[in-house]
């Protein structure tokens, strides 16, 4: 026998199920005004400094179907690379946003500021994905194809270099980007364990 450790094990994850919207974005789910406003509705407020970007995308299952019931959360720093809560953060950048795949089209949209460089990392937005059939929330990141991504400590650890492309938001217009997520298949998105 040995001494017992004092550490606890993390509570096991379970799928969010198809009705995650009820709990997290009830107004979106059609429950009416249980709360005054859904949490995390806006990543930024008016007056946020930096380039406003709109990122649109879909999430595809292994059959190539853009499924409709996913919910996303994003977390990022401001345009100067400072996270909300840190000294000097842009007060108009919430950093956190919740959004969902559209029930009809499966498309999601995130409107935010393009983040700066934080901690020696290329500009990126952390993304957390939950849905029916996803047993533990999936972590990934949105990078930008038109930024300098050299030397980023996460991207540089992706052995199969062509997979870096799965984390790149593609520029589709002025301030407009496309970011599709593939859970399986040749273009499977790189998911993180950080």
């Amino acid at each position: 026998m040995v001494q017992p450790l004092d550490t606890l094990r993390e509570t096991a994850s379970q799928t969010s199920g198809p009705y995650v919207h009820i709990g997290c974005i009830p107004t979106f789910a059609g429950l009416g005004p249980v709360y005054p406003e859904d949490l995390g509705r806006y990543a930024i407020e008016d007056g946020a400094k930096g380039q406003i970007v709109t990122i649109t995308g879909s999430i595809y299952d292994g059959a190539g179907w853009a499924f409709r019931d996913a919910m996303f959360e994003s977390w990022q720093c401001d345009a100067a690379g400072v996270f909300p809560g840190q000294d000097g953060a842009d007060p108009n950048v919430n950093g956190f946003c919740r959004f969902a795949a559209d029930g009809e089209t499966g498309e999601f949209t995130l409107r935010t500021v393009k983040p700066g460089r934080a901690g020696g990392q290329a500009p990126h937005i952390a993304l957390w994905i939950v849905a029916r059939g996803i047993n533990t929330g999936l972590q990934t990141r949105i990078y930008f194809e038109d930024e300098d991504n050299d030397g980023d400590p996460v991207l540089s650890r992706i052995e199969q270099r062509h997979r870096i492309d799965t984390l790149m938001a593609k520029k589709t217009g002025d301030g407009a980007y496309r970011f599709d997520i593939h859970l399986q298949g040749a273009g499977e998105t790189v998911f993180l364990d950080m």
Partner: protein
Amino acid sequence: MSDHGRLIPRDRTAHPAQYDPDYKTAVTRSPNLPLLSLPSTVTEETGPVFGHDLIRPLDNNLILNFTKDEGPAIGERIRVHGRVVDENGRAVPNTLVEIWQANAGGRYRHVKDTYFAPLDPNFGGCGRTLTDEAGHYEFMTIRPGAYPWPNRGNDWRPMHIHFSIFGHAFGQRLISQMYFEGDPLIARCPIAKTIKDRSQLDRLVAPLDMGGSKPMDYLAYKFDIVLRGRRQTMFENRPEGL
């Protein structure tokens, strides 16, 4: 120890496998390729902060919050309470806990739920609260019903309440489900059984807590939650950000 620093790497054996053929939707929604495991960075070590101004008095009372106290929800009145701590056993204070659930008949108030159990006009099915300084939280609600779902020929979900917990770092983010002591459907549920470590599944089953109940009013169930912790070492010496 401060509320900063690297997160303890996630012990994936504590969690369900992504791929589980008995939970059919997981088959096409589970990544095939391995996750890329890396130390946390400032991105995962920081997270949104929600203040007490967000929470209104009825937000954690699902019996009353849908009708704004005009009429109570139908069902067995219960109090669900517990503590949020991290892997180091430290309380996680002032963190947002959100729950959602079916009504007493096993029906969600959601456009996609077509089960023919009736909707309760007095029940919405969501609640939220912040933990106190010691990590405690509590909800008043009704016991949710079990319900059938399309998976294998005759699968039923046990009574359960969905939990969403933030912690203080985006890398601590967790969604799970609370089950009820004594429910025979737990052992038959393909979603509960995505957790292969029996002791980890047992920890999602809330015991009846007579001491936390109120005579002639409600029963109580206790549900404690453990989030990822931060590395506790006196020898921390790392380059900024990674």
